[in-house]
């Protein structure tokens, strides 16, 4: 890179910084000027909460009032993991996966933590119906447990997909879609649960979502190709 190019790059960077700053300022100006929304969505959510099958408004929005969002979200997760697994060339890459850190402290810590994490995940899943919690938080905890197990070298570096693991990937999306289509077949709108079953259907969907989200996140972690030259990773 010669001197004139470097100077031009420096000026371009300053220009970008100024533009980003101006953008932030205009955003803030708009925020101070913005009126509060006239329609009160929160009041509508609270009014329909008794019909939703759960007692927590965020879970009711996620799994009932706007369940379409959540269905598409687990679809996006599936697409991401398909992309990751498709670009993973087994078994050559699996053999080259980073060796686990042989750390005795990590090993004993993981042995103590993972059962607790499973318990916390189950609690979060159950808590979602009446307080903050739910499938996503529970799935994230499960995924963290899987990543810890992988880092401590207690599971193989890469588990090639078999029937059970594919089922775990798909369970959330398929069961969610099946419930939604079941509502359609029985003469309701897509994803409109029968009111008396709403609570149990939401719990079923959330349990499947928890397993799928946990396993999808672990799969994404495991499918990452190993760094070829490790010292270059930190630059």
């Amino acid at each position: 890179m010669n001197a004139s190019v470097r100077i031009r790059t420096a000026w371009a960077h300053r220009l970008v910084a100024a533009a980003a700053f101006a953008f932030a300022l205009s955003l803030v100006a708009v925020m101070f000027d913005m009126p509060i929304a006239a329609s009160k969505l929160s009041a509508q959510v609270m009014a329909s909460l008794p019909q939703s099958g759960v007692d927590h408004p965020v879970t009711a929005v996620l799994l009932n009032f706007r369940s379409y969002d959540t269905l598409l979200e687990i679809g996006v997760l599936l697409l991401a993991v398909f992309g990751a697994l498709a670009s993973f060339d087994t078994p050559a890459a699996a053999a080259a996966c980073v060796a686990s850190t042989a750390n005795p402290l990590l090993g004993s810590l993981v042995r103590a933590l993972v059962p607790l994490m499973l318990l916390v995940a189950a609690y979060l899943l159950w808590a979602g119906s009446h307080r903050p919690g739910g499938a996503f938080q529970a799935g994230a905890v499960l995924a963290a447990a899987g990543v810890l197990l992988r880092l401590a070298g207690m599971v193989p570096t890469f588990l090639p997909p078999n029937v059970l693991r594919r089922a775990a990937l798909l369970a959330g999306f398929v069961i969610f879609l099946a419930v939604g289509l079941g509502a359609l077949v029985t003469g309701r709108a897509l994803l409109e649960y029968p009111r008396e079953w709403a609570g149990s259907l939401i719990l079923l969907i959330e349990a499947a979502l928890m397993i799928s989200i946990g396993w999808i996140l672990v799969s994404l972690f495991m499918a990452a190709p190993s760094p070829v030259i490790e010292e270059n990773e930190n630059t």
Partner: protein
Amino acid sequence: MSSALVFAVAGAALVALGLHALVVRAHLLHKILGFNVMGSGVFLVLVGLAQRDGVDPVPQAMVLTGIVVAVSATALALILMRHLYALTGATTLED
């Protein structure tokens, strides 16, 4: 200035910081990080602005959905970046 607006203004600052890093930094890891900072800023703006008159569960649920999507997209981006590095040794998209 209410606390809701403090969150929203902090979100706007994060959006600008992330945008700057996304444009200026050449290293792909920096770009991915910048994009994530920008996304977090958007979430903060969404939740902060919606809290000006009490807690609203709808934007909170949408942000929760957005966070999960952002995590999976980041994971895919990191995997693609690792592949690029493994195949070519490059960490930027510049020639």
